[in-house]
């Protein structure tokens, strides 16, 4: 190869490495800064503050409830979309994916317009004795709304990727479609489902705008960790850092466990 050829060949790999370096720095610096900006002792102290503990517990409860609803309702829905075709299917899929591209503030407005006190279903909800606005249930509604498309989309892809002959085989072996769904489709699609659940979980944990607008901010009732961080921004920056650190740690744990599930499951996949 001529010298000119060598130079021409080298600039592209260099560019690639450069881009990666920039991306890596940009993405890791803020995370690192959270842990470096304050001492571990101060961080742990601020976590002991009851308001912070309330926020953590509330975030945990609401996110778990929301995820439970998403998995229970979203899994069969995604399965239907993955295995059947019908008129208007593309439209249905787009509608389900819509909250994905909706900015959180718009999501908050949308929820208010739909199920807020003055919303379309507001009267019916109030008549049923359910309180959503300014209540914990409202937080769950907001989280479910913004996080479900993340799961449903991934679940759809995961089910679509399952070899259709596996379900056929299950049926020829005497199991109805429902049993085949539980004994074959879900286990085989599990890595994809887990990845979707992790995305939804992460999104729900971090939800701020829609929660604030729809459910308000009150300690122990609606002030989730992101809202608590915002509240402490001007008065107790250390506390805000500490809570952020916890969120980062939890998110990392979720990501890691998903990778483990995928890795283990991929050990089962046929070559």
């Amino acid at each position, binding site marked *: 190869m001529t010298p000119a050829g060598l130079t021409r060949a080298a600039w592209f790999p260099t560019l690639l490495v450069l881009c990666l370096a920039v991306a890596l720095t940009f993405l890791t610096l803020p995370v690192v800064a959270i842990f470096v900006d304050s001492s571990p002792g101060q961080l742990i102290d601020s976590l002991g503050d009851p308001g912070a503990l309330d926020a953590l517990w509330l975030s945990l409860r609401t996110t778990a409830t929301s995820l439970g609803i998403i998995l229970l309702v979203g899994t069969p829905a995604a399965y239907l979309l993955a295995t059947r075709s019908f008129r208007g299917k593309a439209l249905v899929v787009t509608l389900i994916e819509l909250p994905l591209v909706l900015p959180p503030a718009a999501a908050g407005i949308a929820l208010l317009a739909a199920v807020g006190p003055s919303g379309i279903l507001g009267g019916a909800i109030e008549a049923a004795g359910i309180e959503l606005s300014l209540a914990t249930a409202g937080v769950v509604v907001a989280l479910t709304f913004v996080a479900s498309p993340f799961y449903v989309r991934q679940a759809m892809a995961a089910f679509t990727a399952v070899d259709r*002959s596996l379900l*056929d*085989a299950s*049926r020829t*072996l005497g*199991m109805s479609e429902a049993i085949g769904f539980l*004994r074959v489709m879900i286990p085989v699609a*599990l890595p994809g489902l887990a990845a979707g659940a992790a995305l939804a979980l992460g999104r729900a944990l971090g939800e701020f705008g829609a929660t604030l607008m729809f459910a308000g901010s009150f300690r122990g009732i609606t002030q989730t960790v992101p809202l608590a961080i915002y509240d402490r921004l001007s008065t107790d920056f250390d506390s805000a850092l500490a809570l952020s650190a916890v969120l980062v740690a939890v998110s990392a744990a979720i990501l890691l466990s998903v990778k483990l599930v995928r890795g283990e499951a991929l050990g*089962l996949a*046929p070559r």
Partner: protein
Amino acid sequence: MLRVETRHRLGDLELDVELTVEPGECLALAGPSGAGKTSLLRVAAGLLRPEHGRVEADGETWLDTARGIDLPPERRRCGYVFQHYALFPHLSAWQNVAYPVRGLKPERRARAVGLLERFGLAERADARPHTLSGGERQRVAVARALAREPEVLLLDEPLSALDARTRAAAARELGGVLRESEAPALLVTHDFAEAAQLGDRVGIVDHGRIVQLGTASELAAAPRSAFVADFTGAVVLTGVARPGPHGVTRVELDGGGTVTSTDAAEGAVAVSVYPWEIAIEPADEEPHGSAENRLEAEVLSITVVGSRARLGLAGPQPLVAEVTLASAERLGLEAGVRVTATWKAAATRVVAA
């Protein structure tokens, strides 16, 4: 007994089939890809609902479009072996086999391992499918299909995913299983030799229809069309036939040469003969023996298959001949050598083209 009647349009293909398989019999359907063979199996299994059809197994009606009966696959006692086996990747071999079996774990496992033993796979019972070889997976798939004690066996190209070496052993084993089984078996394949080996009867399928049904030797000896002849592995030559002296038929081959046949025919025809019925003589020798048909050709290729040599010959039309390896060596056959291919008029089949 299994009876399948169906008419169904699949894109460009019009499936129109009627067949009956006796208990203990294996009917092998052979045909090119896209002929509709797999669709037929799926209709029998309930995985495909045809526009018109009836499927009866052991006196029980599984499908009758006229009367609105359509049992879902899980209610039909079929054992279906899929072309790529469709083994559940998240379950071990014994768990796959035990899938259709109800009961407590110890009994299910015992039953599954027992079946695997029949296939010599008992030690691999706990292995996951992706750690098994192709041949082992094929056997697990068959064992799984049998686990349900099915009334009907349906096999979709059960050997085609195997490499040539494993295929021979697997074919013998599968043949044994089919002979032992009392259930009627319907098998589809694109390989006539496989169909001949495994099927008690063979049906040739073309464009959704069974064009000829009979034992493998009947089909080879008396193909009803050029398609069947070609599919069963014969050499097919085209030409024009006229009646000749002594009741034989003379065929002027396209491109040159004349052959004689004991079949009666006239007009545009296809002439077929099997490669192993063609003898090879050196080009310049005087004819000897009773073989009337002689064609000059040049050797293009020699392929060794066991103790046989398969010769690709270029004459006015292409020919394939099979001789013993010893003969090939004795005649000094290699690419470029000119030879005479000869065979008997009585071994020559003629059908309207």
